[in-house]
């Protein structure tokens, strides 16, 4: 089963290699991995999409926790979360296809970010299903190049009305 694992890691050299090396050394799979610094420049967030049975996923999260540069591990699959990825699609466009390409990109609320007489480069963001659906529709026109970010994910904030009001009251008081 697919799991999205979110890692908070130290933002220093070699950390990516420690995490990637752990997966290759122990025969775990990485479907996608993305990493970038956060608001705190000493910390990076890494999102890893992987798959395996429960025993393997348990080992993956435990092994990741054991890496000294890993500060926190959350298996987002166990929580309510949102995930997104971005794809940049360079599609061949003959004159008669150009309108069709724009229509497709409109349907998916994608944007053309570069254009040449024979190509459009389209940027699309969404969950994997949406991104793949658009790519599949564009495919008949002829895909010249395709770049995907891999998924990033974040937990949904638990919203409890009472708690929020309480917080607001405290804020107002101070």
């Amino acid at each position, binding site marked *: 089963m697919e799991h999205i694992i979110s890692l908070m890691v*130290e933002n220093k050299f070699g950390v990516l290699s420690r995490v990637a*090396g752990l997966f290759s050394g122990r025969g775990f799979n990485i479907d996608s991995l993305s990493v970038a610094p956060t608001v705190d420049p000493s910390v990076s967030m890494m999102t890893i999409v992987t798959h395996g049975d429960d025993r393997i996923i348990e080992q993956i999260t435990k*092994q990741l926790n054991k890496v000294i540069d890993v500060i926190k591990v959350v298996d987002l699959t166990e929580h309510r979360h949102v995930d997104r990825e971005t794809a940049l699609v360079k599609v061949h466009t003959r004159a008669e296809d150009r309108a069709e390409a724009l229509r497709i990109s409109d349907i998916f609320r994608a944007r053309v970010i570069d254009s040449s007489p024979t190509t459009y480069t389209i940027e699309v963001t969404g969950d994997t299903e949406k991104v793949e659906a658009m790519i599949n529709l564009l495919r008949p026109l002829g895909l010249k190049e395709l770049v995907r970010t891999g998924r990033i994910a974040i937990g949904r904030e638990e919203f409890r009305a009472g708690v929020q009001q309480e917080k607001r009251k405290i804020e107002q008081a101070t």
Partner: protein
Amino acid sequence: MLTGAEIFLESLKREGVKTVFGLPGGVVLKIFDVLYSEKELEFILVRHEQAAIHMAEGYARATGRAGVALVTSGPGATNTVTGLVNAWMDSCPIVVITGQVSTSMIGNDAFQEADIVGISRSCTKYNFLVKDVADLARTIKEAFYIATTGRPGPVLVDLPKDVSMAKADFVYPESVYIRGYNPTYKGNRWQIKQAAEAILKAKKPILYIGGGVINSDAADEVRELAELTQVPVTMTLMGLGGFPGTHPLSLGMLGMHGAYATNMAVHNCDLLIAVGSRFDDRVTGKIDAFVPNAKIIHVDIDPTSIRKNIHVDIPIVGDVKHVLKDLNELLRGRGNGDLKDARKPWLDQIDEWKREHPLAYKSSDKMIKPQQVIEKVSELTLGKAIVATDVGQHQMWTAQFYKFLQPRTFLNSGGLGTMGYGFPAAIGAQKAFPDQLVVAIVGDGSFQMNLQELSTAAAYKLPVKVVILNNRHHGMVRQWQQSFYGGRYSASRLDHSPDFVKLAEAYGLKGLRASRPDEVEPVLREAFEDRQPVIVDMIVDPYENCYPMVPAGAAINEMILGDPSPEQPQPSRESDKESALPA
């Protein structure tokens, strides 16, 4: 302001380091120059860097403190890799400092440059490249902290030449905090309570202890638990010494070369209490058939060890000593007398298995049996020596026939199975305990992998006793070839080994030889009474096999108990005559 080299050595002293093993080279010359006038640190110059790491491991294993090694860049650094993997697999706290080319040269394929931080990433608990001299003191503090806390392990610090030359103020941190590293020491109370109930309820429990008991200094707690609840104790290779081998509840080692009664007891138990052990394949045999009727309690400081190889019913993450203390507290006064009666049928059953197939060998009046040598060493040292071994038949015989009484008295390479480990490890332990008897039991094959360290033993007057079980073969390989490959002894025979007695003399040391069974005791006595390093060449039966043996892939109750019966074709023993050494 101090130079990086001075900061480095001062930091070692702050960590209580007394001994550093290693070998100099170009990029660490500055450090060695400072070391030249250093009074408090003793440097042990080895002959090969691999041995420096094994010495540091032997030192660490025997003392419980971190062992330290210092080598140069490039080949000096890459020669440490086997030792690093070994320490990683066996959870041994060592700190290895490698020189590195100057920071401006890194990545340029400079002379003697190797990316040791990249190379050692997967075989160290953590590693550092120090780029700024201002970070050096804190890095050393963190290195020792990481190596010795939690599940111990090797840490490598890569120190570029310009960093050791640059100057900075020396401020040694009192403590360090690493936000991604918080080992759990206290076990979960609820889980420990569950474990206590399970132990009281069990009819056929087994306590299965590993190296974690040694690392956590928990031998007393294990003994209390065993006696309190009358649970028989079996040990992994790394756990030997964690419980006295002469204790009535001791079952010795389990697994591939475990005794018949031990493996039968483990196979048939209804509760397996795993403490600081990790269900290695050499212990479990066929994992699906392991302890088919047992509940499993697993205590380990490393969460990844739990449920890695086998499903566990009651997992307890924590330091063995802490957890067992809490567990014993719950169990104390909970029906000790009743338990004795309740356990009797189980202990009787185990005794019956012991009578059926005791751990034994056929002695001979013509040829020295290797097991006889081990028994004699055990008898003469009263189980009080520090014993190191290499890897192979001699290691298994030592595990079977030497009665270990104390923790930290058995040094060997369990996880990685590194031939050539024993002799340097023994030197490291001897350095830590100069007055104790330290015996390296080795094979004629494995000893030749690090025998250059005879110089080191001689130079520093470290009176290690090397007992070679000389069977003119890579014995374990030969045994497998005999058992599973039709006696086709491919590349397992060792011709043209040196005359080990003359070799000892060439190094200015004493060499002794025994070729007949009646010579074993006097030769060992002579060696052990000597105050210098001695090599004892024991010419043993080359075709002796190590039994019981669980074939790879079989369940641990499916043991081969001895050589096949004589009707079956036997490999010829004639061919051995030509390879026999002069008597």
